[in-house]
Structures are given as structure tokens and as C-alpha cells.
């Protein structure tokens, strides 16, 4: 009896309260079901396959030229993407954090919005830029412009877009590192007579190198796992990376599809795993345990250069964020390609089509909104219990399984999807959830637990433990303690986590691309299918809607963020 075994272990873990024991069992089961089980199932498939009859097919899949090419492509776009993200993120973080540029909050927000937008929509938007750009180039006298294909398609476009898209990850880790620098370090250098550029390159940057390296490794892992950008920019040009190759294998669904995809998921996991190891190694360095005094203000005051620096930063935002979005909006408002966009021709027909007339896209909105809100609600409850038991009760079992929580989130999305397919392909106890929304919903629960948990954990860490002890001493049992003390005090953190989950689940394509079927479309799948079916304008309309929704959710979280402990929302340091 596994339950008895669990309860036995718990008894030794010195829990005093039956309802807390029950909560621990719920959390442990959740972890086993959503984190351990899929990974274990995937590992089992690999081991059994390699030992059994699939061995030949799996090794052949590993050695096939398409695998080797896709692996090399993944590595090159991952490395170059991470390099671009690293340089861009470091420069912007340094300028925004260390100098007295104005519009700081707007720049930070605009910069982080990039990472919060659905990658597939960003890719779609960049694809729309070429037509107007070509016209402009031709008007400027470059006659050959039209003989080029869309330069954003293929290797270079994927690298550039991954770099821009994940630069905020580097930006945030570097900015946090810069804000954590002891002020004395900079002041000592300046008092010793060092010029600003020397202080920056000889003192400040060396000190944030671990943060920069960790952020770069994170950008690498994210680039390797990204599906949306190489799907939109790579598949048409037949430039495949591992996630898109897996997608194509599974779309074919021949007899070798599953073993091939399993083998490919091993390769992409190994690549991502290397990146994660690097990230952890760097992230554990460079923490200043004792921070005597933090920077009270920007150490470098720009004088005559300030408008120029501000101009460059705002120009980058205009160029890299607003311009593609405007192109996307233009696409969605134009009745047909080639028709000039004027006040007379502007139309909402594509919006009406995707929001009202097309059953599949309407279903996609209903599914995505329902699943993201549902996942946020379920995860809020589970994560609150988990954080309480881990942080306040120091539950030895949950704290030992801590790393499991992160696994479904850091695994590339396609790998989690394959694990879910393997797990639920056959009916369990007569119930089949394969090809339904349920399998996508379960995958969301697994993937986004870490996102929901992080802000709550930091909320607990900043809450004086005596507040909770007082509630115990003054007679409130567990559930009433949760209701009257824990939930009211942590509600901002729980809500912030829930909003991040909603945001990511609404934007998500990587998981649902492999798990969807007719009836269980998501917003991401709808954009992808419409674009692949040649209905770019309709895809653009959905893209604009989801960008607007993402910004609304972020703005709501920001308003709430004023009441949050610092560090909970990624774009508020």
C-alpha cells in the first residue's frame, strides 16, 4: 500500500496536524503525477526501446542525416541567439541601471514585453515587415530588392529573432546583479581616480560576469527549446532545428514516429541539460551575501550624451518592438494583400472572422482562456500549500523533491509533450484523454507549477515567520490559519504568480502544437494553422488580439505589483 508507506514517512517527519499531513500527501502526489511520472515514462521508453526491438530504428534515427543536421542547426541558432541576447541585454541593462536616463520604467517595461509576447506572433510580425520594407528599398532605387526572398526566413532570421526575443532574460539577470552590487565597490574605484569607462569595464562588468553567464546560458536553453520562431521562419525555408524536426516526425505519424521523436527528445534534452548545468554553476556564484549598502542612484551621470542614449534606447524599442507590431497590425487590417492600407480600405473582417465566424479559432480562444485560467486556479491552491509546507513547515519530503518542480518547466516543451503522449496514448482505466483538451491541461499543470510557485515562495521568505507562529499560538487550526492569515497576507504573490501562468499559457504553442487535435485547438495552434494554411491576415488578427491581452495582463500585474515584495514580477526589480 503506497499510501500507508507515505503516511509512515510523514509520521516520522513530525507533523502535528492531520490536515497538514493530508496537504503534504496532496502536494507529493501532485509532484509524482505531474513531474516525476512523465519524465519516468519517457526514460522508460528510451531504455526499453534501446534494449528491445526498437533498438535498430532508434539508433538509425540518431545517426540519420536529418537528426545530425537539425542538431547542428539547434546548436548554431542556440549559440548565436544566446550571444546576441547576451550583448544586447548587457548593454541595455548597463545603460538603464547605471546611468541617469529618463523614461527608465517605460524602457524596462517595453524591453521585457518582448519576452512576454508569444514567439510565434513575433515571428509572424517580422515576416510582415519585408513587403513594405522592400517597397521602400525599391523606391530608394535598389531595383534588385524584389529578387530577394524574405530575409527573415531561414538561419539568420531565426538567430536574430531568438537573440532579440531572449535578450530580456539576460537583461533581467544582469540588472538584478547590478542592483545588488555593493555601492562601496563602485565608490572605491571612483575615489581611486578611475574614469567611468574604466569603472564599468574593469570593476562592474567583471563583478556581474556570473550573472551575465547565467543569463546567457538561460537564453541558450530557451533558444534550443523554442518552437514558435523556427516553426514560422524555418519550416518554409526547410531549415529545421530539433523541436521542428520532432514536430514534423510526429505530424507524419508513421510507425517509426514515436521512437524517432523519443530519440530526438533525448538529444534536445541533453543540449538543454548542458545549458542548465552551466546556468546553475554561474547562478550560484556572484551572490554577495553581505550587502552593506546598495546603489542609491545611478553612479554614472550622463550630461550632453543623455538625449543621444535615450534616443538610441527608444529607437531600438521602436525598431525591434513597435515596427513589427505595426506591420502585423497593418496586415490584420488590410482586406487583401496588395491593397493599399488607407482609412477607406481598412477593415475588421479578419478580426470578425477569427473571433466569431471561424469555429476552430473561436474554440481556440475558449480553450486557451479556459485552460490558462483553470491552470492558474488549480496551481494557485497547490503552490500555496506547497510553499507553506516547504517554507514554513520545512517539510523534509517536499524539500527533498524540490528539484522535481523545476523539471517540467526547464525541459524543452516538445520533450514534455512527447512524455505526455507516451503517458496518455493508451486509455488509463478505460478513460482516454489523448486528443482532448485534458492532455493539454495536464501538461500546463506540470509545466507552469514552477512559475506559480516562485513568487509565493519569495512571499513566504519575506513574511516574518512569527506572524504564522502567532496564528498557531493564538488558537487557529490549519485551515482557519490559511484562511485568516496566510491567504490574505500572500494574496498579492499568489495573484502575481497566477497572472504569469495565465500569460504564459495563453502565449504557449510548443506544447499544444504536438498535443492538439480538432476540438482542442489553442490560440497558439490557431495562429500556426492559419499561417500554414496561407491565411496570414487572419493569423495576424489573432496575433494582435493576443498581444493586446498579454499587455493587459502585464499591466494588471504591474498595478498589483506595487503591493508586492520586490523581485516577484520579472520586469520590476
Amino acid at each position, binding site marked *: 500500500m503506497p499510501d500507508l508507506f507515505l503516511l509512515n514517512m510523514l509520521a516520522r517527519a*513530525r507533523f*502535528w*496536524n492531520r490536515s497538514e499531513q493530508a496537504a503534504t500527501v496532496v502536494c507529493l502526489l501532485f509532484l509524482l503525477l505531474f513531474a516525476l511520472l512523465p519524465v519516468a515514462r519517457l526514460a522508460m521508453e528510451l531504455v526499453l526501446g534501446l534494449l528491445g526491438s526498437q533498438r535498430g530504428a532508434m539508433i538509425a534515427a540518431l545517426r540519420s542525416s536529418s537528426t545530425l543536421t537539425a542538431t547542428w542547426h539547434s546548436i548554431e541558432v542556440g549559440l548565436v541567439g544566446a550571444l546576441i541576447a547576451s550583448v544586447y541585454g548587457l548593454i541595455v541593462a548597463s545603460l538603464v541601471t547605471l546611468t541617469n536616463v529618463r523614461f527608465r520604467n517605460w524602457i524596462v517595461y517595453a524591453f521585457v514585453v518582448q519576452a512576454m509576447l508569444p514567439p510565434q506572433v513575433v515571428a509572424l510580425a517580422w515576416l510582415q515587415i519585408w513587403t513594405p520594407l522592400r517597397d521602400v528599398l525599391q523606391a530608394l532605387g535598389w531595383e534588385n530588392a524584389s529578387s530577394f526572398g524574405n530575409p527573415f526566413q531561414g538561419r539568420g532570421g531565426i538567430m536574430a529573432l531568438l537573440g532579440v526575443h531572449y535578450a530580456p532574460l539576460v537583461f533581467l539577470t544582469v540588472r538584478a546583479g547590478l542592483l545588488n552590487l555593493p555601492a562601496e565597490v563602485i565608490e572605491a574605484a571612483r575615489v581611486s581616480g578611475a574614469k567611468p569607462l574604466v569603472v564599468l569595464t574593469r570593476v562592474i562588468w567583471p563583478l556581474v560576469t556570473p550573472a551575465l553567464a547565467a543569463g546567457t546560458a538561460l537564453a541558450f536553453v530557451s533558444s534550443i527549446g523554442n518552437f514558435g520562431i523556427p516553426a514560422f521562419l524555418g519550416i518554409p525555408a526547410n531549415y529545421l532545428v530539433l523541436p521542428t524536426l520532432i514536430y514534423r516526425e510526429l505530424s507524419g505519424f508513421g510507425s517509426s514516429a514515436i521512437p524517432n521523436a523519443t530519440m530526438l527528445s533525448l538529444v534536445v534534452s541533453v543540449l538543454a541539460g548542458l545549458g542548465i548545468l552551466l546556468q546553475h554553476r554561474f547562478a550560484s556564484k556572484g551572490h554577495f551575501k553581505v550587502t552593506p549598502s546598495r546603489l542609491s542612484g545611478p553612479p554614472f551621470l550622463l550630461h550632453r550624451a543623455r538625449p543621444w542614449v535615450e534616443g538610441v534606447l527608444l529607437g531600438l524599442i521602436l525598431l525591434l518592438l513597435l515596427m513589427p507590431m505595426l506591420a502585423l497590425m497593418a496586415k490584420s487590417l488590410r482586406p487583401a494583400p496588395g491593397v493599399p492600407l488607407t482609412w477607406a480600405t481598412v477593415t475588421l473582417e479578419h478580426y470578425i472572422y477569427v473571433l466569431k465566424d471561424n469555429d476552430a479559432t473561436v474554440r481556440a480562444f475558449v480553450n486557451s482562456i479556459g485552460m490558462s485560467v483553470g491552470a492558474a486556479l488549480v496551481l494557485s491552491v497547490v503552490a500555496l500549500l506547497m510553499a507553506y509546507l516547504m517554507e514554513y513547515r520545512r517539510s523534509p519530503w517536499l524539500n527533498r523533491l524540490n528539484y522535481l518542480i523545476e523539471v517540467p518547466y526547464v525541459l524543452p516543451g516538445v520533450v514534455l509533450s512527447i512524455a505526455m503522449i507516451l503517458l496518455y496514448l493508451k486509455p488509463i482505466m478505460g478513460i482516454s484523454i489523448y486528443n482532448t483538451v485534458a492532455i493539454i491541461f495536464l501538461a500546463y499543470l506540470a509545466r507552469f507549477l514552477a512559475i506559480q510557485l516562485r513568487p509565493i515562495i519569495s512571499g513566504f521568505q519575506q513574511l*516574518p515567520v*512569527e*506572524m504564522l*507562529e*502567532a*496564528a*498557531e*499560538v*493564538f*488558537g*487557529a*487550526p490549519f485551515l*482557519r*490559519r490559511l484562511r*485568516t*492569515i496566510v491567504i*490574505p*497576507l500572500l494574496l498579492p504573490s499568489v495573484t502575481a504568480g497566477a497572472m504569469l501562468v495565465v500569460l504564459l499559457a495563453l502565449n504557449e504553442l510548443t506544447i499544444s502544437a504536438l498535443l492538439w487535435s480538432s476540438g482542442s485547438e489553442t490560440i497558439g495552434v490557431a495562429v500556426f494553422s492559419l499561417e500554414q494554411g496561407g491565411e496570414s491576415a487572419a493569423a495576424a488578427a489573432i496575433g494582435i488580439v493576443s498581444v493586446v491581452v498579454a499587455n493587459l495582463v502585464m499591466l494588471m500585474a504591474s498595478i498589483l505589483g506595487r503591493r508586492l515584495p520586490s523581485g516577484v514580477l520579472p520586469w520590476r526589480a
Partner: protein
Amino acid sequence: MASVSMNRIHKTYGSGAQSHHALKGVSLELADGEFIALLGPSGSGKTTLLRTIAGLEDIDDGEIRIGADTVSRATGSSRQHVPPEGRQVSVVFQSHALWPHMTVHDNIAFPLRQGSTPAADVGRRVQAALASVELDDLAQRFPSQLSGGQRQRVALARAMVGAPRVLLFDEPLASLDTELRRDMMRQITKARRSDMPMVYVTHNQEEALALADRIAVLAQGEIAQLATPSKLCREPANAMIAAFVGGGNVVDATVVQAVDAHNVRVTVRGHSFVARCDRPPTAAQVQVCIAPGAVSLSTQDDALELRVAFVFFQGGSHLVETDLPRHGRSFFSCVLPLDAQPVKHELLRLQVHDAWIIPTP
């Protein structure tokens, strides 16, 4: 019938090489209405002991009873632990621990609302508790709108309102300045009731001496001495207590002869004086504790001659540190009147009026 009784409490944190034996068989009995201070340096186990009474920590061995109820018991593999919410105890925490999302009124009403107190009584009792700490008109404020001293008073009112069986204090004055400290000490004394024992954890001897009926000095997980404040100051059980409570000087002395059963003549550097003792020492060499105030300037031939090493001007007196090494880290120190005007390197001639021979274990 003692109203709190702790019997051979053991508590260990962690396991293996990392383990820390925080309590090593502590036994302590509190009579009804008694105020006991747990005094000791950090890491001595005093806070752990308080938390075991509250139920915030369980114990590894021993038994804790409140009134007639056993609230914690551990023997061999059997464990019994009443959770904090089932113990009817109260705690005043160091950081006040008021809930920021509740008004003062709701904070104080919280313990009452957990029980079966009728709603009409809740309001009346909250008002009475607020009145007792002289904060009648702040009921609708939130904790963030109060001063540090007011917050700690509200925390005291919250701890008293539910008529707990034991009232526990965990360094409640540590974050207050001197003026507010005095004020809270008055409030705490006022809150004493004949049927409610209090346990007060502190590392500040001034608070312990002023408030407590008895003081338990803890060191390394054990009670080193349990005594009334005056006995603790006059008759410390060992050199550590002598130095920690009252800052007494512990120095080596040679026994000359017993005067009677409780007085012995001893010499230090040729100066002879009478020291009190529990029973006459058997060894020729003893340690004596001399309070800094128990000496005065002397003109006698056999005076204790000490050279001034440092002078700390105290406003109304001088605290002088001399060249005579004492047990512990520093040197023999004494208080001299304002007109003595000691100078560094000057030779002082002193007379010892009172001393205590530290008992040998």
C-alpha cells in the same frame, strides 16, 4: 501543584555530525502566577525552551505539563504533542508579530474568535484589554499606523485577552529603546495575575533582574543556576554566571582561615578580606567573585594594590579597569566615586567589602 512543569527536556536539531543538542535534560517548575526569566547568551537554549512550552517545537525526550494536562511527552519511540493551537498559551514575540492586514481591534479579537466567546463579549473584552495597555482610542488603526512601542503594547494586549494558562515572552523588548523598554516593563508587571505564570526569555540581565521572581540562567542547553534575582547576584553558582549577571570580577584567592560556617578569610595579592560561602572550602586556592561596586579606596597597609589600565567615565562615577587578570576575557574592574579622579598607570589602593567564594562543583 505547579502550573507548568518541565521534566528532563531534550531537544536536538538535525542529525549526525551536523546535529546540535539544544536542550540537555532541562527540568523547571513554575508555580501559579510565578514569573520566571530565562536568561542566557544566544545559543544557550532559552528560546528553544520557550518554544517547546508554546508547542512551536516538539521535544525528543521528557515531558511538559500545563496544569493537569500533558502537552508534550517523548519517551523512546512514543511521541505525544499537543499543537500550539490546542495549548491555551500566549506569546509576545520580539517583532510583535501583529498581522498587518487586520486592525488593532481584529488583532486582539483573534484569540477570542478561535474559541467559543460570544460575539458580544469579544468587543467588551477587546476594549478592556486595550484599556489595560492605555490604548483605548486606537482600536481601528492598522499596525503600520502605530509606533514601535504602541505595537508592542497591542501585542501584549492580544496575548492577555484570551486568559491564557501561561504567558510567554520571547525577548519582547529587544527592539525597543531605553525609554520604551521601561514603559513596557511597567506594562508587563501590571499584567501579572495570580493564576497565570509567565516565562520571559531575555539576554538582558537588567530586564530579568527587574521583572522576575526567579531567574533560570541557561548555558549550553542546561540550567546553570535557578535562583531569585538577589541570590543570583550575591551568590552566583559559577564563574560564568558571576561574570554574566552583574559583571562581577572572578579572581583567584588563597584561603587563610574559616571565620565561621559561612565566612572565610582569604587574601588576594597580600590583601586580606572576609568572603561569604555556602560551606567552607576544602582547597587552599579558591575563586572569589567581587562586584565592581564592592570595593573602595583605602589607606591601610595591606590594601589591594592595582594599577589603572583604563578609565571609563560613567557620568556619576568612574569605571576603572586594572592590571589584575580575572577569569574571562578582561581585567579586574571597579567603580570609584567621582572625586577619586583615577589616572591611567596610577597605583590604586583598594579595600574589598564584600565577596563570594564560588562553590567548587
